[in-house]
């Protein structure tokens, strides 16, 4: 009798807790759905050709996001071009030349911390080091700040992917007389290529939506500007400014910009993932 009771109680407790776990999973998915749904609902109506052909307006006049899109793309490219090569080289050292050395251990530890360090502090650092010296905000400073965020992502993925390359491949190449640098370029890089591209894509996805480091570096520009030495508009800061303004038409543009950014970032994320998994299936 008591056993029966205890049995039912245990089953009930199990049912409740597992129900809660299921509810947690559903609520996680629901939140993602609500956020994406809101973005589509609010942003889609503002999507028109004008968004891509005109610069940001002042309140009350029509306009688009051309200058902000241009600035975001340009600074993302700049940040990736500066950060990714250094990251790939550093990751190569950690996985190929300096495996298990003290330098590698230290860099790995520091890099993992930089990976989640607050990006606003990076913006501040670039502001103090670059903007303050140059005496004005600039697209260069924005790109450099973004490069700081690209670097740790690329270092980590490059190292991880190179470590996955079987040593027997390297030994085989060495045995037929390849020097080390050719082994790395022709064997390690080739075997780890998909994973390394995934890392760069993830890094691009990360900086595409970054706002905090750009606030103090690239600032914003209401007009179309291609001058790298001047403040430059970019989508995240435009969203920030427009969403905090009291005007509904600017809110509409902010939502549209948010829609553009989110779906670009999610597309990058998903393609990076599918690249990584297709690679897994191959090997």
């Amino acid at each position: 009798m008591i056993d029966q009771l205890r049995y039912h109680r245990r089953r009930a407790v199990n049912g409740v807790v597992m129900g809660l776990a299921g509810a947690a999973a559903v609520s996680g998915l629901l939140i993602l759905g609500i956020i994406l749904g809101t973005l589509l609902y609010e942003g889609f109506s503002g999507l028109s050709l004008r968004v891509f052909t005109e610069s940001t307006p002042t309140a009350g006049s029509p306009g688009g996001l051309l200058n902000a899109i241009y600035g975001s793309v340009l600074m993302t490219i700049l940040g990736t071009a500066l950060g990714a090569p250094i990251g790939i080289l550093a990751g190569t050292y950690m996985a190929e030349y300096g495996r298990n050395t003290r330098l590698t251990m230290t860099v790995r530890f520091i890099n993992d911390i930089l990976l989640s360090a607050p990006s606003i502090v990076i913006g501040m650092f670039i502001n103090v080091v670059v903007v303050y010296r140059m005496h004005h905000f600039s697209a260069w400073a924005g790109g450099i700040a973004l490069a700081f965020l690209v670097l740790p992502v690329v270092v980590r993925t490059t190292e991880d992917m190179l470590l996955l390359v079987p040593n027997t491949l390297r030994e085989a190449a060495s045995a037929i007389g390849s020097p080390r640098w050719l082994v790395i370029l022709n064997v390690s890089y080739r075997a780890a290529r998909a994973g390394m591209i995934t890392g760069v894509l993830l890094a691009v996805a990360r900086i595409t939506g970054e706002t905090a480091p750009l606030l103090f570096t690239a600032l914003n520009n209401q007009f179309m500007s291609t001058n790298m030495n001047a403040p430059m508009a970019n989508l995240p800061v435009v969203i920030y400014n427009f969403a905090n303004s009291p005007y509904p038409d600017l809110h509409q543009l902010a939502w549209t910009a948010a829609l553009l950014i989110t779906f670009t970032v999610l597309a990058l994320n998903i393609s990076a993932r599918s690249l990584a998994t297709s690679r897994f299936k191959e090997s």
Partner: protein
Amino acid sequence: MNSSAHVASYSDPVEIPASILRRNNMWDALLRNATRTAALTVLVLLGGVIASLVQGSVPAIKAFGFGFLTSSSWNPVTEKFGALPAIYGTLVTSIIAMVIGVPVSLGIAVFITELCPPRLKRPISTAIELLAGVPSIIYGIWGLFVLAPFLQEHVQPILIALFGHVPLFNMIFAGPPYGIGVLTAGVILSVMVLPYITSVSRDVFETVPTVLKESAYGLGCTTWEVVRNIVLPYARTGVVGGVMLGLGRALGETMAVTFVIGNAHKIASSILAPGTTISASIANEFTEAEGDLYSSALIELGLILFVITFVVLACARMMLARVEARSGSRV
């Protein structure tokens, strides 16, 4: 005879021209040094960040000393600055984020590893991880226009009615429902830390040896008993590491919080009231800071934030490293 001559020709040492050897050595040295320099760059950059923050905060440190950490005045006109409200706001929003986020994350991780049909595992994991891909500015605009009004109209009045007459709680849930405020910021943060804690927890849950779990099931344990007595104790270090990782994110998160916290440099006992965090103060005021002391005070805030997150993240990494050493895979 013929065949032995053939073999001999294979074993003849092949002359490699010295120029090729030299060239290979040169390239080897070049690549080795280039990669080593790049690895050192990572360290130099971190050193540079810390050094420049320390240098930038020297005027504020000289002017306020340790009082900076305990003073709660923030007055740009009289140039009196104290970090306490910002530090308080940072901690309280992060605590709220953890109180909501940790149980939900663990629930999701349990669901994925123990309950979920195998075919749904990947899609659900991916969807949760996509939450980490959504840029923080998007959480900000969503929090401002969707979550804050929702909390203001539907949740905060209930909280006030429910706890308004309970001692202690009526201080925490006091005042009019503003919508924006510390609670809203905490809720947004809890969504943002979900994917980090969930993915680390899921990974460490999966390192639990199947034999252990199966033995427990064999003794007649329910799923919950297996999770509580086998999975959680085994995965404890990793889960705590994952929670610290999420905490590090929550402490430093800027844009989402800036949108919804209200930016008031004061300490209110009620979590419904507006407040500020370190990162929100910096984001709001840094470009407009007039005068060296004002900028310097903000840079010192940045330094404090960096030190706090550095310590939290370092603890997280060390815990996760212990799990890695045991399971042989990197979490």
